[in-house]
């Protein structure tokens, strides 16, 4: 029944989208060497970890990566060798997350980790990756450890960058002077990201306030009232989709739509959100999209849809994390293909090549993708803004760079690599 329901939803939500894309250019999905010949050589083992259990499903990044790898394998693989993609589920449990990494890295001896999407896996395993000499190419990160450690690089932006992007847009284009950031009372997620929003607003002569919501609290009304009491003119919903919707609903009860500007980071950029929040919010909620909007006509965006349609299950979601997983997988395959065919099974050499990635481009990203040696990695810090409108999303600002003191060290590295 779960799968039936999902299949139904996907069919309704995406039939139009993918059909028009497929019709627009009749080519098949483009992957790897593009030979159209199934790879049969000795498999290259690659690992991925996602978190799928209550309270959230982060599996769409590994689903997309798996789809792309299948496509690569059907197109000559890596110099004739197929990729064997081993995916583990951490079930939002730190113990399982640690065990999954050990299983993949020590027991299975994978050469790389690609497409990871989890709320806590990165915090648990950052040390393990460093020890094992793995440069993890994650796709769906939320916690600070994912962006502030030596051996993880993520394609997505995470709460910090996406929130800065949303607040910056509100300050520049909506005239916001004071932003109330309603976030989770979790230090390496809510506090970490809301603090930077306050710093951004203060650097621009405005003000920022942080209101923290305990994830276990049934009542979101008090948090909303607390935000109202700060006297802010803009409400930033730095929350997972479910809680974000609950806050919007409480605000609807108070008819607060027109009293404030409403902005949110990427979690609300999800096809089911416009319907879930209803007509009341039509044209009133601005959401930051950390990757290209789903309807964007770029080559990679179209290829992503095609790869998903041909190689993923019909009920695998097509969301930002899916785009991100696809992109991590593509960059990984490009890196392997650029290596000597004899070295692609060698963990040390593969991870050295990943670390050396610099200046990879995609229409899904606003800026270049790079890895490099540092104690922090956040190549993706430019995005789009969309507006919830007519049951969907309308792009209101295309690619723009986020401007915050937080990114100073990142900019320095980019200069060094000649990307800026």
């Amino acid at each position, binding site marked *: 029944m779960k799968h039936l329901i999902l299949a139904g939803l996907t069919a309704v939500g995406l039939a139009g989208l993918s059909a028009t894309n497929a019709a627009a250019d009749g080519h098949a999905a483009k992957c790897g060497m593009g030979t159209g010949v199934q790879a049969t050589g000795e498999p290259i083992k690659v690992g991925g970890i996602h978190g799928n259990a209550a309270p959230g499903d982060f599996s769409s990044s590994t689903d997309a990566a798996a789809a792309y790898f299948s496509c690569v394998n059907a197109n000559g693989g890596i110099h004739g060798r197929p990729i064997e993609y081993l995916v583990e589920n951490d079930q939002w449990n*730190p113990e399982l997350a640690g065990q999954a990494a050990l299983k993949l890295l020590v027991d299975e001896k994978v050469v790389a980790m690609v497409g990871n999407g989890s709320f806590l896996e990165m915090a648990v395993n*950052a040390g393990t990756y460093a020890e094992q000499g793995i440069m993890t190419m994650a796709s769906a990160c939320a916690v600070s450890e994912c962006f502030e450690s030596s051996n993880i690089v993520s394609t997505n932006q995470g709460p910090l960058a996406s929130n800065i992007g949303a607040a910056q847009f509100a300050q520049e284009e909506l005239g916001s002077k004071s932003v109330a950031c309603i976030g989770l009372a979790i230090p390496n997620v809510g506090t970490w990201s809301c603090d930077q929003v306050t710093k951004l607003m203060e650097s621009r002569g405005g003000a920022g306030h942080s209101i923290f919501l305990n994830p276990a609290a049934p009542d979101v009304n008090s948090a909303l009232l607390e935000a109202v009491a700060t006297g802010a003119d803009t409400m930033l919903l730095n929350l997972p989709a479910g809680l974000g919707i609950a806050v919007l609903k409480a605000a609807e009860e108070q008819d607060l739509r027109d009293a404030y500007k409403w902005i949110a980071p990427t979690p609300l950029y999800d096809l089911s959100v416009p319907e879930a929040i209803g007509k009341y919010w039509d044209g009133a909620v601005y959401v930051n999209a950390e990757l290209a909007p789903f309807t964007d006509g770029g080559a990679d965006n179209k290829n992503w849809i095609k790869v998903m349609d041909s190689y993923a299950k019909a009920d695998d979601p097509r969301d930002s994390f899916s785009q991100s997983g696809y992109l991590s997988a593509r960059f990984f395959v490009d890196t392997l293909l650029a290596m000597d065919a004899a070295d692609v099974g060698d963990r040390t050499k593969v991870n050295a090549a990943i670390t050396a990635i610099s200046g990879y481009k995609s229409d899904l990203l606003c800026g270049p993708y790079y890895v490099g040696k540092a104690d922090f990695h956040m190549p993706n810090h430019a995005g789009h803004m969309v507006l919830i409108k007519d049951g969907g999303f309308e792009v209101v600002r295309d690619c723009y760079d986020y401007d915050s003191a937080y990114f100073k060290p990142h900019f320095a590295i980019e200069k060094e690599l000649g990307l800026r």
Partner: protein
Amino acid sequence: MDRLAIFMPKTASARQAIVFSLLAFFVLPSVIGAQWTNILTSAACFAVAAAGVAFLYGRVGMVSLTQVGLMGVGGWVMLRLSHGTDLPFEINLILAGGVTMVFGAILAFPALRLRGLYLALITLMAAGGFEILFATYQFPNGGEGFWGVQTGTEVGVRRPTIATSDTGYLRFTIAVSIACFLLIEWNRRSKPGRAWAMLRQSEAAAMAASVNVVFHKLWAFALSGLIAGFAGALLAGSIGLLDPSTFRASESILLFALAIVGGARFWQGALIAAVLYRILPALLNDWGLDPDLAFIIFGAGLLHALITAPDGIAGQIFGNRAVAKGSTDGGLSIAGLSVRYGGVVALEPLDVSFTKPVVGIIGPNGAGKTTLMNAFSGFVSSTGHIDAGGTRLSSLAPHKRSQWGLRRSFQKAEIAEDLSVRQNIQVQLDGAKISASERDKAISIALDFVGLDGQQDTLAGQLSGFERRLVDLAKAVVGSPRIVMLDEPAGGLSSDETEKLGDLILGIHAHCGAQTLLIDHDVDLVKRVCGETLVLNFGRKIAFGPVQEVFTHPDVVAAYLGGSEK
């Protein structure tokens, strides 16, 4: 010397424990991969925690729904000490256990005033509180200050210098776990264990027997807390950092539920709980099955255990298999049984078949109940037949009937006052052709069944009235009885004691397979425990059938309300 002696393997259970421990310590860690090393470390931590909550429930009769919350306290202290001081892991472990022990003891204060459901609920409230505290203040991860939370750092906890590798740490965890199990076992077998056993039965009796109720309740909770603290601290050492989601109130409830599923009165029960809690989900994950399945399995397991197996899976596997179960398979049927004393008809010809595990025999004074029992025992001469499980009982000599498996308790508990509890029960088996070790095991099982395992060496003369009843009951169920006849066992007991006794009677069939014939005046007790009831009046059967029907039978109502007979 006595203290050392208890560690000598006397029973099969102890031998199994030693073999298992050696296997777990020496063999397992060297044959499994990195993933399973970690899974087993985690499982060992939770086995310890489960043992803590299980002994509290199984031995002291108190429910704690905050064990995982207490583990969080232990883990928190371990992380804080590891990041904030240079003390070695072993010292931190002891300190973490100590601090958690204090928290456990604080929880015992409500337990002085509350019991049963209310006590369970107050511990549940504590678990809810811990969940919010951990979610709000988080676990230290290497940052500065008292809370030590800093984003972006991933400093793991120091491990013991003798066990820095994953395999070494698994061995270390197993060793500490074994020590925790032994600590519980030692407590159970010495003075605290005896006090708990009495507390579980009747606090009034315990107080009367000069047991310090306050101290022993406090100690039980403190011990359970200490063990939870060790478990939490060990878990912190395994993962390197902790996450609030591990210590939710729902996890505490789940661990308690699994401890019951495993079997709260067996050391293997805690292991089974840990296997279900940590190894089963990992297996489901490995097999690619939906993790939601684990919830469904846990739920079904819990219902199954509570309804059919009060001693859990461990009880079903390790409970009393070694002793052959007696039974009356084939039924117990009475045909034309009658007893005459001279010209007086004490029991008119009786035809009846008993099929239920517990059968009640009731009737006003002088109705012929005891006469019927005497006929069963062969103490009076009777005509007619008694057939049980394919044996014609009525043709056997009285002592042969006893050897066959017919047991009986008398209205006044018949125990020898200058023998110890154990010796009193041993008398029952002296005639049986079994080895000394089998006999000792059977006695231990029977003592455990009635809850006198802590008092086996007490002289029977020092026992309370209720305890004497329990000894009597233990005599009736020891070995392989097939029919257990209880003659007014609830006479002179308080209503609470009667309730306890009722629980035990209900458990006889599951315990040893025997069919119970219960004579009693206590209608509530009969209604509660008997599947069918025979009503006698003036030596005649006036009704027989399911309890509810029998009590609404007009003749029965008339006999009991003093109406004239038709």
